[in-house]
């Protein structure tokens, strides 16, 4: 039936929303260093772009469009021949049925459009959140060493959108004095300790801070200022303990 496919899409969108919400919440609230711990290369934040379903819905849209055109065409023809057809009664009821058919088709079209838009908007919102939460570094930073390259679960246009959006944020971050001085990408939890204990998860090398230079070797522990290592925590290089 028309609209069933779109319904499927919406159900999927809803499930996606719940799933990602869990991950993003974990990323936002976790005090122990980002979501990298419970989130390995196999799991993904955002499910696969449902190419097939989208394609089928778009096919349905085409079908519906053809239906409406056909119905309009018939109606026009009927109107032209109306004068010759004097049977008012049957003509009237036919007209009503056609109108109803036409309307149903139109509503299905509209609904499909809304569902597709909602699906895409939901995904783009998730991408936005991923960008803001620093889950997207440069590609090699994110899950380096795993077999995944890039973001396979995103569609081509979504990948484009993601990198453009990230560029936008980075650009604004570096150009706006206010944004950079308050570290707008920083932690959204109220600060409690200025200094925290961290454990280094991956070799990074030397980090220069106000309080001297640290050599961040894997598995070493440091007591450092939180704002100095905020980005490293987000990117999963170090862990708060």
């Amino acid at each position, binding site marked *: 039936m028309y609209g069933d496919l779109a319904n499927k899409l919406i159900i999927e969108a809803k499930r996606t929303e719940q799933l990602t919400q869990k991950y993003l919440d974990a990323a936002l609230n976790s005090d122990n260093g980002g979501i990298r711990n419970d989130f390995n290369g196999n799991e993904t934040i955002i499910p696969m772009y449902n190419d097939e379903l*989208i394609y089928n819905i*778009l096919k349905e*849209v085409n079908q519906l*469009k053809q239906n409406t055109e056909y119905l309009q065409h018939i109606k026009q023809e009927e109107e032209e021949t109306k004068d010759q057809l004097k049977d008012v009664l049957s003509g009237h009821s036919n007209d009503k049925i056609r109108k109803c058919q036409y309307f149903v088709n139109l*509503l299905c*079209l*509209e609904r499909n*459009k*809304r569902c*597709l*838009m909602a699906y*895409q*908007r939901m995904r*783009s*919102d998730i991408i*936005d959140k991923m960008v*803001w939460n620093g889950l997207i570094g440069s590609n090699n930073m994110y899950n380096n060493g795993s077999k995944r390259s890039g973001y396979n679960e995103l*569609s081509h*246009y*979504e990948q*484009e*959108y993601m990198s*453009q*959006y990230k560029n*936008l944020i980075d650009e*604004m971050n570096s150009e*706006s*004095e*206010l*944004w950079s*001085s*308050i*570290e*707008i990408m*920083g*932690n*959204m939890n*109220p*600060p*409690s*300790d*200025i*200094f925290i204990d961290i454990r280094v998860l991956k070799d990074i090398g030397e980090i220069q801070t*106000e*309080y*001297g230079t*640290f050599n961040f070797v894997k598995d070493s522990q440091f*007591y450092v200022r*939180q*704002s100095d290592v905020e980005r490293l925590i987000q990117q999963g290089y170090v862990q708060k303990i």
Partner: protein
Amino acid sequence: MSLDIDDILAELDRDTTVVDNISSDNFPNANNNRHKLTKDYSLSPNSSLDTTTVPQHNNSSSGKKKVISSIEDFSKLMTLWKNERCSPDLLPYPHLLMKRMLIRIQEQMEHLEILSMNFFEAQGNNSSDNRRNMSNAPVNNNKMLPLLCMEAELERVKFVIRSYLRCRLAKIDKYSIYLRQINEQYLNEEINEENDDDADDDDKENPSSLRISPLEKLLSPEEIRYHQSHFSLLLNLLNESVLKYMPDELQAVNDTEASINMIDEPDYNKFVFIKVKGPPNNLYDTDPLLKKRTHPDIYYYSITIPETKEDIDLIIGSIYIVRYSLIKNLLLDEKIELL
């Protein structure tokens, strides 16, 4: 400069725990006091850490003749932050306040850097002079404490601004089409007015180019840029993945003619908690909206619920739950605040 980082860090550890105990007891008060304390420091960059009382008046950061103290700014910021987070609508951007806050933060950061450099130099000298004599540690601790307080305070102010701006950005994203529509409406009106102006050339005193568009009042330049760029990115994505496959008549993204409005609008009927503050500086007589009930003396604002034609008296100092649309104007005039 030889620094034993572990020693310093160990000391820092003790200090932060002390600070934490203070702040967790009574957060808002402690924060305010500390704010005052540290801002005093910031105003006297040359004085040593031991002098605490410095008059607030030598504040050069605000460009106005009237000096606005950093405490006032801070409490204003806190109010704005709360309002923004509680209101369904996007509230106007405080251009001047944010400029002042930026200057203050930068000054404070520089000041802190100088202070901590001095401190570490002193510490480095001390520790190299009397390496064996460990009795100098408590002295360092005492000196370190204000520094830590200032740093914690700076982090908190930064957090509030960050949270405030991010909250605004989230709203901008959510209502991006709606905001665009407001702007387009305004631009259309302006074009019409300009045409009118051309008709009669007498009215040249108020050139429309000088007027500020509603969007410019509502958003900061950064937010406007963000809004436009993000919207065009999003539109591009939607176009490429969905809209271009749609029949021609369904390709618009701001579809209002369909059976359901597709533009997200702020929910002006949302219920909000408000606290009635009254006019600024308690100038009760100058506020025309304010009504007075004698016996006992009570000042209140009167609002009417349109559906039930019921009057509500918003008495100053009390807390109410009302629909946002009813109190929007009072909120914009800063006569109430959201909770």
